[in-house]
Structure formats: structure tokens, C-alpha cells
């Protein structure tokens, strides 16, 4: 085959594939981080989508997607937000896990009767988040294997966060999960993918770490906390561990602080600062991390899982909530 012929084959293959797949490519570009590249991609792809639609070249792909029950939206529609009382008035209501957290400006509630967890009535946890939550989820499941009084459901999704609900709608997915498993405690670790511009309610785009960005991200984090608390569940918001790359760590601090401020205003929300777990006295990163210096190793997942359970126990009236086994063989 001569180069000219080969070039013809490649141009036809890529061009035709681009036309047949234009909608999917546009969708992918829409959910990519805001910026010049996204703008260029959308500028190129929108006319392709138009041409593809006129020539009906997108129909085969749409038919295949329908056959395989594939959709390209960010998930199910989020639940309609009900009107909420001001945060300090909310109490943990229906679950047996009673928190000893005083509401702002009010006296501490009387200590609740201790609840004895059993295999018939385990403490129900939901644990999830982005890929950093991966080994936290796995280790929580491992702990629950050996503790029948603990029931854990997990759900982590790589490359997700709160800044791009058009890519992955965490409030909607979390609502589905909690409706199914009815957890008493929701443990969430997100943020590692959120250091990117996000769209504000007014339709503009806020660059990362600007005041507008911090306000909007805080609003989203707070709304997610309220969504969970409205269902009578406790929220454990796990802060991101210290990162190897200092600049990336600084970005994560912005995200963590935005979430931490929202948690501080809400009784029923516990914020776990994980940084002391993975750094020495000088703040330098220690082991229990994956080679990328971002994700946790299995040992890191265990350490974090133990810390989460300790936090829940320390803030509950349930002295029977035992710590997990330590020193698990690896």
C-alpha cells in the first residue's frame, strides 16, 4: 500500500468515526475541565454533530447505546431540595446512632442510652468517594468481614468530584445509594479531582481557588451534607490526606478548607482531618501511600478506616462500637 492510499484510509476511518461518534465526543468534551482546550474541542465538534445529525450518521451509535442501555447523562436527576431549617436546629433523628455533638449555642443533649450493635442489628455504613477513597472502601469492607455488627456498603468512582456534576452527579448517585442501603452513617472522601474551574449558578465559570469558586464549592459540599442529614444520617466528611507534591497539596487544602467550613456549621457532620495520619510532626508525607504520592496503599486504607471508626465511636453514645482488629497481616 502506498502512503497516499494509506492516508486515504486513515482520513476516511477517523473522519467517518468522528461523524458517527460526534455526540459522544461532544459529551466527552463538555465534561472535560473548563479551559482553552475544552473550548477548542467544542468549537470543532459542534459542527460535526450538526452534520452527523443531518446525515443520520449518529443513528447507528444511538441504536447501539439503546441496545446496551447506555446513557450519556451524568446520572439520575438529583432529588428536589426540600426547605431546610437552619443547620443548627437539625438533630440526628431516626437512627440509633446518637451523637454527643451540642448544637451551636445550646446545651449538650442528655446522653442517649447506649445501643448494642449485633449481627441482627449492625451499624450500617456507606463509604465512598473518588479514587482516593478506593482503599478506604476496600479496607472498610475487610473490617466488616470480621465484624458482623458492622455492615458496610461502598461506592467509589474514579475521576469524580463535586465540581463537575455534568460528568458525575454525586448528590444523585448518593441519594440512590442511601435509599437502597439505608445507612446510618455516610462516610465521604472527595476532592482530589476538584481542583478545576466550575460553573456557577449564574452560568459563569469560576477559576479554581477564586473567592467565587470557594463559595460555590462550599455551597455544593454543604448541600450534599444537608441532603444526607435531611434523611437522618450522620455525615463523616474525610479530609484529603497530605499529598507528596506540595503544589497539589496546597490545592487540596483549598478544597478541604471549603468543606471543613461547611461541616463546622452543621451538627451531625463530622470532619476527619486525615493529614496527621499520614505525615510526621514536620508535616512531611510518610509511608502508607501509593507510589504516586496521592492514593492510599492498603495499609493507608486500614489506618484511615480505623480513624473513621474511632471518630464515629467517640462521637456516639454506643460504647459497644468496637475498634477494628489492628495489626492485620499483609
Amino acid at each position, binding site marked *: *500500500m*502506498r*502512503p497516499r*492510499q*494509506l*492516508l*486515504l*484510509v*486513515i*482520513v*476516511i*476511518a*477517523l*473522519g*467517518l*468515526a468522528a461523524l*458517527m*461518534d460526534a455526540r*459522544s*465526543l461532544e459529551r466527552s468534551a463538555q465534561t472535560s475541565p473548563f479551559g482553552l482546550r475544552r473550548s477548542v474541542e467544542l468549537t470543532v465538534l459542534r459542527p460535526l454533530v450538526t452534520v452527523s445529525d443531518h446525515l443520520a450518521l449518529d443513528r*447507528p*451509535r444511538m441504536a*447501539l*447505546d439503546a441496545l*446496551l442501555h*447506555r446513557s450519556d447523562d451524568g446520572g439520575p436527576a438529583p432529588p428536589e431540595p426540600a426547605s431546610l431549617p437552619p443547620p443548627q436546629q437539625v438533630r440526628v433523628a431516626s437512627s440509633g446512632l446518637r451523637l454527643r455533638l451540642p448544637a451551636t449555642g445550646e446545651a449538650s443533649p442528655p446522653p442517649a442510652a447506649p445501643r448494642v450493635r449485633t449481627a441482627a442489628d449492625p451499624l450500617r455504613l456507606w463509604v465512598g468517594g473518588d479514587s482516593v477513597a*478506593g482503599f478506604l*472502601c*476496600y479496607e472498610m*469492607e*475487610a473490617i466488616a*468481614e470480621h465484624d458482623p455488627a458492622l455492615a458496610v456498603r461502598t461506592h467509589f468512582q*474514579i*475521576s469524580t468530584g463535586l465540581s463537575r456534576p455534568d460528568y458525575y452527579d454525586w448528590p444523585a448517585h448518593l441519594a440512590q445509594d442511601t435509599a437502597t442501603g439505608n445507612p446510618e452513617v455516610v462516610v465521604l472522601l472527595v476532592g482530589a479531582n476538584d481542583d478545576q474551574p466550575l460553573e456557577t449558578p449564574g452560568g459563569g465559570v469560576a477559576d479554581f481557588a477564586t473567592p467565587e469558586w470557594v463559595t460555590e464549592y462550599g455551597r455544593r459540599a454543604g448541600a450534599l451534607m444537608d441532603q444526607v442529614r435531611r434523611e437522618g444520617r450522620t455525615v463523616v466528611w474525610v479530609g484529603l490526606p497530605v499529598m*507528596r507534591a506540595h503544589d497539589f497539596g496546597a490545592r487540596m487544602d483549598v478544597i478541604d478548607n471549603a468543606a471543613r467550613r461547611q461541616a463546622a456549621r452543621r451538627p451531625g457532620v463530622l470532619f476527619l482531618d486525615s493529614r496527621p495520619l499520614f505525615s*510526621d510532626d514536620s508535616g*512531611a*508525607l*510518610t*509511608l*502508607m*501511600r501509593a*507510589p*504516586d*504520592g496521592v492514593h492510599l*496503599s*492498603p495499609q493507608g486504607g486500614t489506618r484511615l478506616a480505623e480513624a473513621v471508626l474511632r471518630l464515629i465511636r467517640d462521637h456516639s453514645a454506643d460504647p459497644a462500637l468496637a475498634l477494628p482488629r489492628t495489626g*492485620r*497481616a*499483609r
Partner: protein
Amino acid sequence: MLFTTVDFAVFFTTVLALSWLVPAFGTRWKLLVLLSSYVFYAWWDWRFCGLLAASTALNQAAAEAIARSRTAATRRTLLVLAIAAGLATLGFFKYAGFFASSLANALGHLGLGAPLPLLQVVLPVGISFFTFQAISYVVDVYRGTTEPASRLDFAVYLAFFPHVVAGPIVRAREFIPQLRRSTAEPRLDGGRAISLILGGLFKKVVLAGFLSTAVVDPVFGAPGAHSRVEVLAAVYGYAVQIWADFSGYTDIAIGCALLLGIRFPANFDAPYAATSLQDFWRRWHMTLSRWLRDYLYIPLGGSRGSSLLTARNLMLTMLLGGLWHGAAWTFVVWGGIHGGFLVAERRLRRGRPRVETGVNRALARLLTFHVVCLAWIFFRADSVATAFSLLGRLVTGGGPASLVTVPVVLAIAAGIGVQYVPAGTVARLTARFAQLRPAFQGGVAAAALVGIGVLGPQGVAPFIYYRF
């Protein structure tokens, strides 16, 4: 950039088109390919372009010095220095953290010391591959089996973007002579190249991607939460996944190289149809196994000494081969399993004629496949303890098998079944494709790309081997 992204498609098409504007394999062509290769490598991490360049300069300097040297002692010294420098660099980037964490764990078990600071070492992409290629070049010059290449030719060889990230490990004497051809307009094996690329994309994106998310990752992540049937499906599924992922990548690399007029050696030959472990290593990651044979096993003495020495050489080769794959004890155990079974196999077969009857061959294939799967458990598990937990679940794990769906079973069956498709069948299909008019070839390729996009999981997963 990953082979399975639109970025790479645009990059490669651009490089290909530009390469046809200059005489193939001339100086301008080589400079274009070299520049493109560094752009490709910089896309991963620009900071390590200097490392690749330094490795190129150091090994070429060593090869030239060895070729000029007149004394055996000097030649040997230069060889040792070049190899030591390469292995030291590889050791620092790849194994420093592993040894630090192993030491920390050991101290912890003894009740000594606090957690050690994590070494701030990022692993350069492809370092294992280009280090091994560089070592093979210097050794071959030392042995006299290849002449030192020109500096430009060696630079192109080491950085050539289709293989720089994850192989195949091409020898200099296989690659560099191809750069010495000269033709204004090469005739390209376009049909075969496109077939390889499309087939590789299907294996990587659809087959490997599906099995990874459907069964392998959930089971290996939490073995205790899954039944024995699910564990078994995950083990078989991982065997198919790693073959599909790696052979798929290799097919794409070979196809891309073909489109640039360069022929790579094959890297896989139906490995799960092997009738023995020795046969398996003649079919799996063939370029690595030949490298280990020629530059480690044979220099150690190979099978020339006593059976005890042969066993030692086999074990050492496989243990180091395991460590090459990753800085973790699981990879060492993986290598140890292969080494141990290779030693046992050699002992059992000594002096006995090979029996090739149908039933015996089928049993041999079955046994070999399951030994390989046993080793894969350790290769995939995040720790030795997790691997043993998985093995334990095979015995004790009751419960439902919700992850073992019809698509999972079909994917595993397809991945193993395709190993038994005759090579002639694949060759005939490729030839039929190559005979189509270019417009029809383009149409078939477009339909294949769309199908792969539909069937593949969301998002882009890297190749398993790319961080080796």
C-alpha cells in the same frame, strides 16, 4: 498520551503525514521521528526527557568506546560501567521506595523506629523498557554481534515512540538496520497494520476494560466479600485481562511501527495454549523472555552446569524477572512460582520423550494454564496477604455469584478461545481486509472504532504494563 485516546490518533496521524513528506529513513525522516518521540514522551512527563536523553548519550558513548578499545580489560570495564549506570538509575527510580518501605515494615515488626519518610521518587514512564534495550545494545556491541550505530540512529531506536513506553523490547540489531534503508516512497503493509491496531484496541478497550471493572477489580479489592465462584471468575478474568491489555497494546505498537515502515518482532503467540511453562515463556512477552535468556540466564551459566546450577540460574532469572515487573513482594513471589515450576518441570521431563497425544496435550495445557493463573493471583493482588486471602476464598468462600454474569463468562471464554484460533485464519482475514478498496477499508475501520467506543467502559484506563 495513551494509545487509546483521540490525542494519540491526532498526534500519530500528523506524524505519519509529515513523515511522508520526506524520503523515508533519511536524515530528515529520522530527525522528525526523533522529535516526535520526545514530544510523545514529554506528554507523559517532560521532566524525564532529560533522563531518556542522558541514557541515550551514556550508552552510545559506552558502545563507541567499547568498539574503539583494543584491550579486553578496558572493554569489559566500560561494559560493566554502562550496565551498572543503567541498573543504578532503574534501581533508584523503581526500587528505592520499595526497599525503604520493606525496611520500615521490618523495623515496625521488630518494634523499632517510626514510619520512614516517603521517598519523593516519581517513576519515569517506560524506564524498565528503554533501560533493558540500552543494555542489550551495549552488550551486543561488546559481544561483537552488532556494530555501534550512528548517534542519530541509536537515539531514534531508544526513543522510538511506538515502543518507548511499554515495549516490545526490540534489539538494536533488529531495529537499526531498518533505518539504513533508503527509499523515496516505501510500500507499507497498511492492511496488516490497521488490522493490528483495530484488534489491539478491541482487546485493550473492550475485553480488558470490561473484565477489569466487571469482576477483577471488585474481587481483588475485597476478596472476603466474594464467593469462590466469583474468585475463580476473577482469577480467570485477570488472566484474560492482562493478556488482552498487554497483547492489545503490543499489537497497536507493532501496527503503528509498521505504518512508519518499521517491523517489530511479535511479542505474544497464544500463550494460554502452552503445553508447559517453558512453552509459555516462548509465547508470553517473548521479547522480555528472550532478553532474560540472552542477558541474564545464559551469562549466569544457563543449563551448561549441573542440574543444581541450572535450577539456581532459572530461579534467579525468574525472581529478577518478577522484580522487573514491579517493586513489590507480590512480583517476587510471582517470579518465584514460575521459577519453581520451571525447575520442577525440567526435572520431571529429563530423559523422557515428549508425548503429544491429544488427551495428554489437553491436560498439559490445562495444568499449565492453572499454574500461570496461580502466579497471576500474586501478580495482581495488592499484597501477599491478599493473594492468600483469595486462595483461601477458593476453598471456603460460599455464597452467591452475582458478578459472574453471562457477559463475564463469554468474555473469559472468548479471551481463552481465541488462543486456539489458527494463525492462518487471522492471516486470511487480514489479507481479505487488505484487498478491499481504500474507501471500504476506511469504512470498516470507522465502524470498528465506533463499535469499540460503544462496547468499551467509560473513561480511559492506562495499560497495565505502562508503569513498568
